[in-house]
């Protein structure tokens, strides 16, 4: 079952002077079992879009199909809770949702809300801690005393402990240093490849999109402007430039080399490959 939006609109504060159309007639399918990046400028509707996936926001018009459910405009969906367990949504700066006395309790909070017993919730929490790379020594510490990066991992573990089939992350690496970003992204990559979770990431970071994602959805003024696979999207810089996005360094370099008379094949997707190719060309010349 793919995730689909059918003619979905979302209007904030309808009927007041502050009326704002955040999504306008969005029809979109998202691939299952893949990592999809949702990109676009601030205010393009990315966050509004993803908040429909666990029915935090309900469509003003149209319908959202997710897992085996249909969320339609105008009807109050039943059993919202179980949907929220299946679609885990991690907000921007999720460290601001921690509140329990210990890390373990905070991570177990989600599963417990979904009716899992105390012991099972703790078990799930421990597994989730392992996934995000937090050792057992963190279990009894207060989440409020951890460093920024650690707090964020606790928050993400809190969602993972619910064992959702779909994981949605709104700018999960914002404010992290490059090392923290790297760890976070490779975690999502592993979750996708090892347990087949569908992952959606709202992000501005093209380097990460290029390295870790499979598909790209570009949002523009409340509408999906483009949906394609990452290889096509970053084939060269032209699409990025058109959308006013800075392409990843590798793509910029490849373009620059092409402009200067080098031949660079499309398949090259990392520094090593590029160096190999360039070495061959320069040496053959000599």
């Amino acid at each position, binding site marked *: 079952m793919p995730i689909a939006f059918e003619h979905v609109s979302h209007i904030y*504060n309808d009927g*007041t002077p502050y009326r704002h159309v955040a999504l306008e007639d969005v029809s979109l399918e998202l691939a299952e079992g893949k990592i999809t990046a949702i990109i676009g400028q601030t205010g393009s509707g990315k966050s509004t879009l993803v*908040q429909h996936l*666990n029915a*935090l926001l309900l469509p003003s018009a149209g319908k959202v199909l997710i897992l085996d459910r249909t969320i339609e405009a105008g009807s109050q969906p039943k059993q919202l*809770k179980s949907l*929220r*367990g299946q679609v*885990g*949504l*991690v*907000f921007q700066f*999720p460290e*601001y*949702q*921690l*509140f329990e006395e210990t890390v373990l309790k905070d991570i177990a*909070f*989600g599963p417990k*809300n*979904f009716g899992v017993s105390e012991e099972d919730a703790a078990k799930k929490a421990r597994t989730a801690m392992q996934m995000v790379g937090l050792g057992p020594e963190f279990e009894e510490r207060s989440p*409020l005393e951890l460093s920024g990066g650690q707090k964020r991992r606790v928050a993400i573990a*809190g*969602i993972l402990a*619910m064992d959702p089939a779909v994981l949605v992350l709104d700018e999960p690496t914002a404010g992290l240093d490059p090392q923290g970003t790297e760890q976070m992204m490779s975690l999502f990559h592993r979750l996708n490849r090892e347990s087949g979770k569908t992952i959606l990431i709202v992000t501005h970071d093209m380097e990460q999109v290029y390295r870790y994602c499979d598909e790209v959805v570009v949002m523009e003024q409340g509408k999906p402007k483009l949906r394609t696979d990452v290889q096509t999207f970053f084939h060269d810089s032209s699409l990025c430039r058109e959308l006013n996005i800075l392409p990843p360094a590798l793509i910029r370099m490849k373009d620059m080399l092409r402009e200067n008379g080098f031949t660079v094949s499309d398949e090259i997707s990392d520094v090593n490959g590029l160096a190999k190719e360039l070495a061959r060309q320069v040496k053959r010349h000599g």
Partner: protein
Amino acid sequence: MGNFTLGRYLPLDSPIHRMDPRAKIMGMLLMLIAIFIPSGWIGYGIIFVCAAGTILLAKLQFGFILKSMRPMMIMMIFLFIINCLVIHTGEPLFVIGPVVIYKDAILQTLYIVVRLLLMIMITTCLTATTKPLDMTLGIEDLLKPFEKIHVPAHEIAMLISIALRFIPDLIDETQRIIKAQESRGVDMKEGKMQERIMAILSLIVPLFVSAFQRAEDLANAMEARGYAPGEKRTRYKVLKMAGRDYTLLLCCTAVLAGMIWLSRMS
């Protein structure tokens, strides 16, 4: 929050909007005192006419005022019931079950309702026409003379203006945390007692943590830009009283005097 109109500023252009906040605050205080003088129905009638006139001048709609009354409704009904049970003077009017309702119970309640209505009308004339920041400037200026008896006028004003500045941010933050916790299966609207307590905790604790973080950041930002409480500083916005402001004060004083006279007469 959308329907909560009490105390909200309405950005319109009217003579009342352009008045000096100090004159408006003083005027409001005089009128509030006038309401509490037992001047009888004639007095209330006069105050009502004055307040209604100001509302018209300020281009406010009466619907806006009525909306502001709404949060008070439950309180008033409660008050009416209590009065009916407690007050046993005046003529008995009618009987509901075991309870006899007396005339004074109705009159007493009506008095309070009318006073409340007048108070809301008058305070709305101030709050709906004065920008929050102008209000704090006005308060600061009015409190200035009391600095001699160690009332920290500037600090109070700074406190209020910063609170006002961060209210929208805190509302956003609250909504974000609610959504984040709902994503973790929290039900903010229903559930057993135990669940509800956890739900509230899961909102309150993060809200406090982030408010403290904000306060720390803010303190650093203010200090770095040379702010030191109690130090001398200049002020960018200067208030000036004009003819219409003095007229307002004169009118309000006249109404107050009139009420005192009326209460003496009866």
